[in-house]
């Protein structure tokens, strides 16, 4: 167990380090912006908005909450990301890791 914990600790430490690096160097922000732009470009945002409209019509305009939306939107959103966008982002993250990982 100790080994597993150690391993996990190592992993989490690594993860923490990487995350920290991402934020420090501004890469996280850049990646976010890149993703948002790409999603808008490919029409993902409009698709999601249309879905939102349906949800709102369903739930009623006055009573819709953030939680409602999040619950409805997020799984669909994740699924609807085009493959090209996904691939590109993964590529960039990997490159970053290769550059800055231990």
């Amino acid at each position, binding site marked *: 167990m100790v080994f597993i914990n150690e391993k996990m600790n190592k992993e989490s430490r690594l993860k923490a380090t990487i*995350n920290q690096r991402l934020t420090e160097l501004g890469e996280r922000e850049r990646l976010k912006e890149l993703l948002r732009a790409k999603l808008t470009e490919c029409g993902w945002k409009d698709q999601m908005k249309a879905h939102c409209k349906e949800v*709102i019509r369903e739930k009623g305009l006055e009573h819709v909450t953030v939680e409602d939306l999040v619950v409805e*939107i*997020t799984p669909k959103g*994740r699924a609807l990301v085009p493959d090209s966008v*996904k691939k590109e982002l993964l590529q960039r*993250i990997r490159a970053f890791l*290769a550059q800055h*990982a231990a």
Partner: protein
Amino acid sequence: MKMEDMPLSGPDNTKLEALVNDIYSELVEDACLGLCFEVHRAVKQGYFFLDETDQESMKEFEIVDQPGVDIFGQVYNQWKNKECECPNCKRLIAASRFAPHLEKCLGMGRNSSRIANRRLASNNNTSKSESDQEDNDDLNDNDWSYGAEKRAKKRKSDKSQNSPRRSKTLKHKNGELGSSMSADPYKYNYNAGINYEMLGPDEVRSFLTTCGVISEHTKKMCTRSQRCPQHTDEQRMAVRVFLLGPSAPVLPEADSVAGPESFDIPDGQALMSRLQWEDSPEISPSDSASSKASTNHSDSRRPKKKKRPPLGLNSGGGIGSLSGGGGSGGSQTNISLSTKKKKPKLTAPSISSIYDDLN
């Protein structure tokens, strides 16, 4: 996907991949959340459904996706083959040519007045020369014609009348001679040939540079240069003799034409000064200036000439005398007029004889 860049070994790769995917998921979730907040705010603030109207209007402006038609449902070259009736001339004009046609037709465009004037001028020209259609030779002759004169006059009318540049333009443009200055007094009656007595200073000056042979068919003077291939030197001589009297000065010969190009300007000024000089013993400033210039020139040119007259009053002098200027007092400036002339036959006494003839 370059795995070879990874510094870590095999089993770590999967972990790294997992890490990468984790980061990716975080980013995507972030994006989704961002969208949710945006939408929620729009809903609560009431502007979420603003881009929608009632169903009817929505249907009306729906995006059209048919072949041959754009997204608004319009056909591309719908007006290509249509014809419009011009309200002015009542003709049927193609749609794409309608606007330019209207411009010309109504006379309101930028070029319409220019084109109309040009057309009128050329109509005048062609109507004059229509009688001589048989002989193309003459038409090619670049003859002086009234239309050209009018054109030249019109184009040059805004130039200053007193500027010394007159002579320069005269030298360079054989076809548009300086009739700009001689407006009314020097009328040309082309039916009977040129009215020779009324040759103005400019036309006379033109003899220095142009062929001048009068074409039998059109009765006009050839405006080509002295080397014009259609006329011989004898013809030119004959014309000058005919125009200027038996003591008319000679033509410049071919070789000498190329030489003293710069003479024209001072000569022109000298000519002008002489012409305007009416027995006044006083020498006007222009005279003295020009005479100075010309004498200088003539001095410098001396070695080049084969034969030089003692007085140097050649065709320039002879021509100048026609307009009745310059009395006997013309001594200094006269001498200066030794330009391209090579066969001077005038002597001092003959100068005054020329003047006498005219006066």
